[in-house]
C-alpha cells in the first residue's frame, strides 16, 4: 500500500479529529437470527451462508451505509467496533 493511501483501519488521529481507527461493522452472532437484511443493504460487503446467516467479507463499511444497516437490522445485531 502506498504512503498516499494509508490503511484506514490503522490511521492515527490527526487534526481532523478522525477516529484512531476506522470502525468495523460487527455482527452480534447470538442476537442474529438470519433475517438477511444486512446482505440486502450491503450487497458488496455481506453475503449469506446456506442457512441465511451473514458472511462479512469486508467489515470496512462507510459510516452512512453502516448506520442504515444497523437501524434496519430486525434483530438489532449489528454494531461498530
Amino acid at each position, binding site marked *: 500500500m502506498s504512503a498516499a493511501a494509508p490503511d484506514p483501519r490503522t490511521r492515527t488521529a490527526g487534526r481532523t479529529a478522525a477516529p484512531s481507527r476506522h470502525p468495523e461493522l460487527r455482527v*452480534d452472532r*447470538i*442476537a*442474529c437470527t438470519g433475517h438477511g437484511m444486512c446482505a440486502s443493504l450491503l450487497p458488496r460487503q455481506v453475503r449469506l*451462508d446456506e*442457512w441465511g*446467516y451473514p*458472511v462479512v467479507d469486508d467489515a470496512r463499511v462507510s459510516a452512512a451505509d453502516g448506520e442504515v444497516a444497523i437501524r434496519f437490522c430486525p434483530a438489532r445485531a449489528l454494531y461498530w*467496533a
Partner: protein
Amino acid sequence: MTDILELLDAAGLTGRGGAAFSTAVKVRAAREEGAAVIVNACDGEIGAAKDGYVVEHHLAELVHGAELVASSRGRKVRYAAHRGSATASTLRRAGLDVLETPARYVSSEETALISLASGGLARPMTKRKPFVYGGRDSDGRAVRPTVVLNAETVWRVAQVATHGPAWFRSIGTREEPGPRLVTVTGAVQHPGVLDTEAGTPIADLLDAAAADSRAEHLVIGGLGGVLAPVAAARALAWSTAELAQFGGSVGPGIIDVLDPHRCPVAVVDSYLAFAAGESAGQCGPCMFGVPALSAAWADLLDHRPTPARVEIVRARAGLLPNRGACRFPDGVARFTASALQTLRPHLNAHRDGRCPSERTSGVRSRA
C-alpha cells in the same frame, strides 16, 4: 513489597488457559475496574488435566495468587470447576466459593463462566468489549466487571510474587518465559501432568510419559488445537514458534497421543461428532455449521474420500472462523484444517481402498 503488577510485567507471565494474553494487562484492568475474579479450574479442553493438578498439589499457592490478583476493595474470588468433579470437591472441602459449571465444552469458556456467575446460563456471550469493563449480554442484561484467569496462571502469579521475575524468566524461552504445565495423555504408559517449560523437545515430553513408539499422530491442544504427525513433532521444541509449523500453539498445554491401531480419520470423526453436539446453539454459523462439518467429515470415512468430498470439508470449515460469539467454531476449523493436512497420505490410502491403521478390517464401506 513491589506491587504485583510490576512483578507480573517484568516476569512476562501470559495466560495458561490457551489465549496467552498478558496477565499483567488483564490484572491491571481488573484492579482499575474493581472486577470480580473467577479462577477457571474446569480443564474444559479435551484431554486437559492441569487445572485439577494445580488444585490437587498447589492449592495454598493458588489461593495466595488469587488473593494477590483481587487484593483490594473486597472483591470476591470464585473457583470454577465442573460439577461433580474431584476438583470441585477439593475446592469445596477447602472452604472456597465454587462456581459449579455443567461439564459441557463451551461452559468453561471465559464469557460462559461470567454469564453463569452473573445468574445467567453457562453459555458464551458476545464480547462487544472485554467483560473486565462490565457490559451487557445479547438480551441487554447488565453484567458486572469480571475477570477470568486460568488456575495455572493464578498459581504462577503466586510463584512470581514469591520467587521474583528473574527466577521466572530464567525458565522457558525469551518469547514464552516461565515454567508451564503440559498434560500428556492417550497412548502413553504414564499419563499425567508435567511441570516443564517452553523450549523443551517434544520428544522429551513423549519419552517422559512413555508414549507408544508405534504412534503416528498427536492431537496438540485438544479440539481447539491441531493434529500433527509424531515423527515431525518429535523433532520440534514445545513452543508456539515451532508448533506454528502445524498451525498450532502451546495453547492449553495438552498432548494426546493417538492409538496407533485406530484409524485417525475415524478419531477425527469422533472429535467432530462430539463438537457437533457441543455447540451452545446460540450462533447460527456454529449451530448449523459445526454439525454440517461433522457430516461432511463422516462422508470421508464412510465413502471414498474424493477430492470433491475433501473440498466440501474444507469449505465448511472455512465458514466457521470469526462467526461465533466465542472461539469454539474457530478452534474446530483449525483442528479440521490440520487434520486434512496431516492425514493427506492416510486419506489417499483410503481412496485406494485400504486403511494403513487397520490390519484386519478395511475401510468401513465403499461408495
